[in-house]
């Protein structure tokens, strides 16, 4: 009886631990695979006529649909979006996002623009105003 109880206890613990580890591994692989198959390219950047408005045209040439959830300009997070944030960009289609730059745009200056997809993939671009 005692041996049976102990056996059951150990079996249960082992089963739970192995199952948990398998789930963790499976989730990590799925996340990494999804990220690896995401492809975004900024094909056009232009500066708006008024103020510090930036417009990006993005091509999704990856396997999955995605959306841009955040943009950083020179490591400063964009706080104000005009359009395009969180909108789906289907694969092999163009998307557009407009936002107000968190820092003043001065002519002939190089800016680093980082766009972040919902899967957490960063895409870095250098653009000159």
């Amino acid at each position, binding site marked *: *009886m005692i041996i*049976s*109880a102990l056996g059951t*206890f150990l079996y249960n613990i082992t089963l739970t631990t192995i*199952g948990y580890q398998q789930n963790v591994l499976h989730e990590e692989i799925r996340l990494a695979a999804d990220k690896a198959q995401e492809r975004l390219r900024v094909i056009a950047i232009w500066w708006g006529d008024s103020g510090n408005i930036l417009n990006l045209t993005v091509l999704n040439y990856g396997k999955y649909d995605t959306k841009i959830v*955040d943009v950083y300009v020179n*490591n400063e*997070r964009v706080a104000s979006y005009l359009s395009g944030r969180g909108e789906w960009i289907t694969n092999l289609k163009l998307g557009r996002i407009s936002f107000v730059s968190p820092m003043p745009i001065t002519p002939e200056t190089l800016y680093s623009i980082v766009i972040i997809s919902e899967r957490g*993939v960063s895409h870095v671009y250098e653009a000159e105003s």
Partner: protein
Amino acid sequence: MIQNRVLRRKGVSTFIAVLLLMALTVAAGVVIYAYTMGYLGGLGGTSLPGAISLDTANCDGTTHNLTVYIRNIGKGSITIDRVYVDGSLVPTGNVTQTPVPLPEEQVAELIVEYWSFTAPTSYEIKMVAKDNTQLTFTVKCK
């Protein structure tokens, strides 16, 4: 007379007795299994660890400050517990996270003050959350 009657009573055979014992053991085992499955199911951890990704990091060698934006792309909220710079633990008071905890699909700003941040050196940063979610990256101070 009475004594004879008692002696004439027959018990179950040895074979049946063994079968009954086995059945009782198996039944008890099933009951214990059901109980332990219920009580111990959560011990191994039913929730998956979270996942965080790096949005951007900026190290200022003049102010010795590292500003990091991290995104919660997993399940559950995240609170950064420890930060290591090249393997050395940064004192808890030198790390500021906003917001705490970081909800799912949201971004947190972390400011790490560390005296050894100098330009133009690269540092390996490791962040460990309370649920053991980890993020490791390299940043170059400017």
